[in-house]
């Protein structure tokens, strides 16, 4: 089993992705998506909680109980991110980044602070961070989604209130 078959999702990712009409493509992309307890605590709406619970029940999602080493690393990431002129990260995102670093799982986020930290902090080098944009692109590459990618991206934007960078599917991946 490869670490690439697993992902860890943060709050911003879950609460947006859950709004998308095709949200159930997610389980097809990974063997399991871990949801840290720190993240689960922040999910409050009935519809998102139901979706998360359904996926926990089927084993598509798995609860990740943070260990002391993960929390310690995450706290250091929070502090370091605030030393640079970038948007800092808070503990829930930092926990996901720490899991990404320490376990090799792909980090799913819609939080630009998490993207910035993964890009700028040397201690997070090698961490793979995917946005919904990257996930949808992967779903097309793997044949899980078909049809016109632009239409699907637009659909995601409509459903979630998201806005992807301009420039088409390839141009979006900058």
């Amino acid at each position, binding site marked *: 089993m490869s670490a690439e078959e697993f992902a860890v999702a943060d*709050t*911003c990712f879950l*609460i*947006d992705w859950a709004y998308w009409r095709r949200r159930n493509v997610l389980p097809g992309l990974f063997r399991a998506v871990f949801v840290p307890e720190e993240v689960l605590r*922040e*999910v*409050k*709406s009935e519809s*998102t909680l139901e979706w998360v619970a359904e996926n926990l029940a089927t084993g598509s999602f798995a609860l990740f109980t943070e260990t002391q080493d993960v929390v310690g690393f995450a706290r250091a990431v929070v502090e370091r991110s605030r030393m*640079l*002129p*970038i*948007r800092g990260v*808070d503990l829930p995102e930092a926990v996901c980044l720490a899991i990404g670093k320490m376990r090799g799982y792909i980090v799913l*986020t*819609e*939080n*630009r*602070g998490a*993207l*910035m930290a993964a*890009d*700028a902090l040397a201690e997070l080098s090698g961490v793979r961070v995917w*946005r*919904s*944009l990257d996930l949808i692109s992967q779903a097309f590459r793997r044949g899980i989604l078909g049809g016109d990618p632009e239409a699907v991206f637009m659909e995601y*934007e409509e459903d*979630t*209130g*998201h*806005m992807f*960078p301009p420039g088409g599917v390839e141009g979006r991946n900058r």
Partner: protein
Amino acid sequence: MSLEEKLEKWRRLEEEAREIRRKQADWKFIDSQPPRLRAALRLYVEMGDIRLASKVAGMGVEEFRELLRRARVPVVV
């Protein structure tokens, strides 16, 4: 890419995202909100930091995300 180049790239992307949020936001809705929510929405438009803005609003992240949808402020990532 050096750290300085990365920081410059993010500074540019943040400016682009700020312009998109300013342009797309429903300012009539934002201005009709109570002071705390109005301040939080304006802060989000300028900074894009959902955690900071939700704390100013006195809301959880998910609840504030719903308010952003109602205010037509896009999340640009």
